[in-house]
């Protein structure tokens, strides 16, 4: 579409007198056309992303009553609170553990699904995507019942083996375990589908060449599959790290951050501090802390994606 507009612009320009040429010039330039075509999206991003972002930076510099500018006061206050550092640590543990397991399970299951022939594969793909398609707030409610200490399916089943009852959401360790488990359950299908697509894009002949070169099953994965999927792995990991780090619904519904704040993440703690305790500036301050941490992760992971982008 852009090309047609440019063509018209050029035609008009060629025919018009010299004085009008400069305006025609600007309007006819490819970059100008491109700018106008993307303008609606740019406005949307400004309205929904940039404005709230800067507004939260502004909020973070106010006092609790939002009447006075306190500069970095909220930040220095946070640094002194032990709960804050606990939330940092928990968020990191939560995000990293969950993403590692999601990626691992996604990778392994993707291999299995990849080897299922034709029609059956579509059925399996559909079924395995279900956790990711159900709104997490709803599926987490189901998990909440499964984790119930007295009446749940888990503890009932375990009782036959003489295990338990396990306080799934009441004990610090088990509560952390449970929120990670549900997050992995919810997020692994995303990795599965991305890895499956990546696996399909690796030419079969590379594996054939490798098996003739003497590679065994593991060497093929290490020397062919992983390098060929490198970019997809980096991008999905980063994407999932961001989403998992900022997770709210699962923790909110399962534990509300308890017991003893031991499962709080940035988002849930920001919600508790900002909305429930009515200290919006401090809440904004907490959520802003995700930015530098995730920025570092993004740089680290995407460092050589560009370099390797169009190798294949």
């Amino acid at each position, binding site marked *: 579409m852009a090309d047609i507009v440019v063509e018209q612009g050029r035609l008009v320009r060629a025919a018009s007198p010299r004085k009008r040429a400069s305006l025609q010039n600007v309007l006819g330039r490819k970059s100008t056309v491109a700018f106008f075509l993307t303008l609606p999206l740019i406005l949307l991003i400004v309205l929904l992303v940039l404005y709230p972002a800067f507004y939260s930076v502004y909020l973070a510099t106010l006092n609790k009553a939002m009447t006075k500018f306190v500069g970095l006061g909220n930040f220095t206050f946070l640094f002194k609170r032990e709960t804050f550092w606990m939330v940092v640590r928990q968020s990191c543990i939560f995000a990293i553990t969950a993403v590692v397991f999601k990626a691992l399970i996604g990778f392994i299951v993707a291999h299995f699904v990849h080897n299922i022939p034709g029609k059956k594969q579509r059925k399996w793909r559909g079924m395995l995507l279900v956790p990711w398609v159900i709104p997490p707030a709803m599926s987490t409610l189901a998990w909440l019942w499964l984790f119930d200490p007295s009446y749940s399916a888990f503890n009932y089943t375990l009782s036959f083996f003489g295990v338990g009852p396990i306080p799934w959401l009441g004990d610090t360790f088990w509560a952390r375990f449970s929120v990670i488990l549900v997050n992995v359950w919810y997020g692994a299908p995303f990795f599965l589908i991305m890895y499956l697509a990546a696996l399909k894009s690796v030419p079969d002949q590379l594996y*054939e060449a490798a098996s*003739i070169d*003497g*590679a065994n099953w593991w060497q093929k994965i290490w*020397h062919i599959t992983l390098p060929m999927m490198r970019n997809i792995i980096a991008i999905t990991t980063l994407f999932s790290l961001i989403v998992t780090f900022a997770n709210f619904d699962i923790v909110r519904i399962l534990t509300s951050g308890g017991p003893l704040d031991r499962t709080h993440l940035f988002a849930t703690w920001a919600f508790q501090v900002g909305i429930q305790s009515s200290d919006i500036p401090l809440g904004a301050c907490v959520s802003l802390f995700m930015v530098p941490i995730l920025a570092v992760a993004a740089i680290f992971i995407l460092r050589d994606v560009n370099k*390797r982008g169009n190798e294949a």
Partner: protein
Amino acid sequence: MADVTLRKVVKLYDDVEAVRGIDLDISDHEFIVLVGPSGCGKSTTLRMIAGLEDITDGDIMIGGDVVNDVPPKDRDIAMVFQNYALYPHMTVAENMSFGLRLKHYPKAEINARVTEAARLLDITDLINRKPKQLSGGQRQRVAMGRAIVRNPKVFLFDEPLSNLDAKLRVQMRIEIKKVHQKVRTTTVYVTHDQVEAMTLADRVVVMNKGRIEQIGTPNELYHKPATRFVAGFIGSPAMNFIPCRLEDVAGTVQIRLTDRIAFPLPPARAARYNALPRSEKLLLGIRPEHLTEWHAHLEPGVETFDTVLDVTEPMGMETLVYFGLDGTPVCGRVDPNAGAADGAPMRLAMDLNNMHLLNDETGVVL
């Protein structure tokens, strides 16, 4: 270095017979080309030798050992694929040394072998590049280099030149022949291009519909084809097949092509075909180069006839002429100065000393 033997090899894909019982003996150092139209089972045969496809029945032996159940990595073979199958994330050197590194060869030895192979293929300057930075011909060389460094018992080539343009294909064909002359590794080469087959092979295996039609040196196949398929497949433009029958006229055997055209057979041919029943439907197989312009001093066995040309194709060093004999399209090759023109009448000469006679029903060359 080893010989390769196939014994009654069969390959079924869900009841579809891709390969229907192949017997083939390939001796050490030999360059064998499997050639045939698409779907004839030549690639499947190669992949079975490589171990990339299971065999349904029969035996494959490499160096005297039955390798039916040996995985590709333990067969000590190297393969060059049609689309090269270079590892895109590795440099040329890494691509070439991959197999050796997997087998934990000492570094010095790997380097020596890669350098030697790169020198042989003239790709020393490219050794640190990635495949995407290479042209088609260069990738082809790297793929060959990867095969050479392994110093395997057998080289397998799966239509390695079909992704190259015509000029490069000729160049790489010569290159492959040179490499084989230097390393002398037993080679099995698959192609659908009969020119490649003829120029490269010590022996050509012509395949059709999962069976071997004929095995022979390029000259044998060209001059003594066993079946109509081989006769028609080898040679370009293809051999003409003209319906005909034999007659006895005044004590000589004649071959009748049309109501108008009949020639006495040369004595050697007459003796050979004399026993055939006169009623049998036959095909005269004659190559275009044995259908030339008429001139005054013709050898015995060369007969002339008049026809009207449909189309002519000047090729420079020769002109191809097309005409019909009772509806059968026929192609001849005449001198460019012989005055052939579209729609013009022309007197042509047919060299019956080089004729073939085929059974119309079975396609067997008699």
